[in-house]
């Protein structure tokens, strides 16, 4: 017996029919991805010299993308794992949509590092000659383990719904039915399976929470362990982590709104969910502002020469336009929207969330480029400058296209809202009544 969910048909509807618009979207995204692949081959043959990077700016948009995508990946773990531990039952309908962001952005985050290496085979050096003195080894360990654990966490919670697809989507092509059969691993919806699954997911949620903190802290330590101005601060870990959760949660709002509109999931992804996310986002935006002030005030008050060069570049120099735009995009406009316009208004919520993500990409760029352009060993290395070159732009566009492509593809073959987690009744199980929220009215918060 499968879980009883009144919205089952609504959730399964996108899986029953692939439209011409889907094929068109996939074709456009694949073209962008292939263009990026071409740019990467061009870079592989010609070397990193064709990028905008040059001494002393060794990290450009590739590392910006790395930090941004890893940050985006925190949405899934936050929504699914941390809120699971906190017993926030309203999160159930949006867990898979959030976890899918994690799953599909991590490869592009980790991949950006490999692209930045110029020659991907150099990754083998980490295995052959790895030493734990180097923060890059900490990074490889944490990001690799996070990726592996995210895949398992995501897959385990997907199994009951794959089994449901196996039994319900009998009109699907044979290869698709075969795929469901293999991936379902013989799941038969027994109460004991559900009991064990919940037990494992609860345990993994604790482990994933520890991992999420570790991963972004370690990512920040790639910068923090050097003595470059603007990077060498103990605050960089929590600052990166908060920024990651902010951009990740904002990304969840964008994705949910698109899914709701495209797949007509209004009854499942109700306005109450957006209102709950709005409250979380207000907290994160304010937390991020606190970090910004603490970081820049400490540097500015001490007035150390090298640090001040970078700070002045951001506040009133070459990067001031990006810096103040970033502040407006991440803080001022979203906060005003969330407080005065966002309640019960998904359009405004999406607008604010898009601004947050554009702003957070700028923030990642600002963390990296100004510090590298004005290094601590300025007299030896000289003043740097950086502007992304064509291959970097094409590869960046390809990474974003890849993320959207994988996501769009997934939603056409697997239920994007967890059917068993939002079910009114599970086989021989009282779980659902406690954890699945009934669609709440719009103004319920």
């Amino acid at each position, binding site marked *: 017996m499968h879980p009883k969910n009144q919205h089952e048909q609504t959730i399964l509807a996108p899986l029953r029919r692939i439209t011409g618009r889907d094929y068109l979207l996939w074709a456009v995204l694949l073209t962008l991805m292939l263009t990026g692949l071409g740019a990467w081959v061009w870079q592989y043959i010609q070397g990193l010299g064709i990028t905008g990077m040059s001494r002393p700016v060794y990290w450009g948009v590739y590392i910006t993308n790395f930090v941004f995508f890893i940050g985006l990946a925190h949405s899934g773990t936050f929504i699914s794992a941390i809120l699971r531990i906190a017993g926030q039952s309203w999160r159930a309908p949006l867990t898979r949509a959030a976890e899918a962001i994690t799953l599909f952005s991590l490869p592009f985050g980790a991949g950006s590092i490999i692209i930045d290496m110029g020659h991907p085979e150099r990754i083998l050096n980490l295995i052959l000659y*790895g030493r734990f003195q180097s923060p890059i080894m900490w990074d490889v360990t944490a990001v690799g383990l996070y990726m592996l654990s995210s895949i398992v966490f995501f897959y385990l919670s997907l199994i009951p719904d794959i089994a449901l697809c196996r039994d319900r989507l009998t009109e699907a092509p044979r290869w698709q039915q075969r795929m469901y059969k293999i991936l379902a691993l013989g799941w038969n919806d027994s*109460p004991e399976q559900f009991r064990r699954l919940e037990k494992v997911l609860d345990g993994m949620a604790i482990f994933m929470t520890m991992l999420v903190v570790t991963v972004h802290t370690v990512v920040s330590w790639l910068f923090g362990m050097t003595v470059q101005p603007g990077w060498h601060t103990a605050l960089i870990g929590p600052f990166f982590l908060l920024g990651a959760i902010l951009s990740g949660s904002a990304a969840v709002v964008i994705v949910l709104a698109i899914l709701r509109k495209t797949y007509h999931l209004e009854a499942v992804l109700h306005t109450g969910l957006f209102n709950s996310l709005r409250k979380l986002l207000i907290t994160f935006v304010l937390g991020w502002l606190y970090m910004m002030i603490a970081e820049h005030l400490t540097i500015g008050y001490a007035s150390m020469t090298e640090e001040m060069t970078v700070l002045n570049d951001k506040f009133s120099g070459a990067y001031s336009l990006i810096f103040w735009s970033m502040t407006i995009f991440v803080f001022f406009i979203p906060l005003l929207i969330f407080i005065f316009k966002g309640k019960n208004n998904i359009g405004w919520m999406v607008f604010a969330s898009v601004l947050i993500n554009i702003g957070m990409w700028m923030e990642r760029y600002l963390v990296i480029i100004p510090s590298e352009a004005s290094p601590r060993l300025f007299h030896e290395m000289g003043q740097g400058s950086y502007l992304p070159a064509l291959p970097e732009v094409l590869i960046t566009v390809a990474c974003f296209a890849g993320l959207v492509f994988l996501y769009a593809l997934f939603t056409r073959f697997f239920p994007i809202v967890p059917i068993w987690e939002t079910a009114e009744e599970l086989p021989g199980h009282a779980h659902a009544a406690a954890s699945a929220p009934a669609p709440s009215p719009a103004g319920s918060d």
Partner: protein
Amino acid sequence: MDIGQLIHTFFNNAGPGGVVVMLIFGAALTIYYFLTRWIIAGGKEDELAPLADQTTSVDK
């Protein structure tokens, strides 16, 4: 055995880091594999449970 020397050797030599990374990934994969098997096996135990009950009642 000089523990301090061992730790120093671990952190200052090329190679051990890679081995540790492989061990961590290997251990995680093994644990996840057995956890998945354990969850799925729950279905078989549920199927077997009524049979076990029946056997007991016949013996009595």
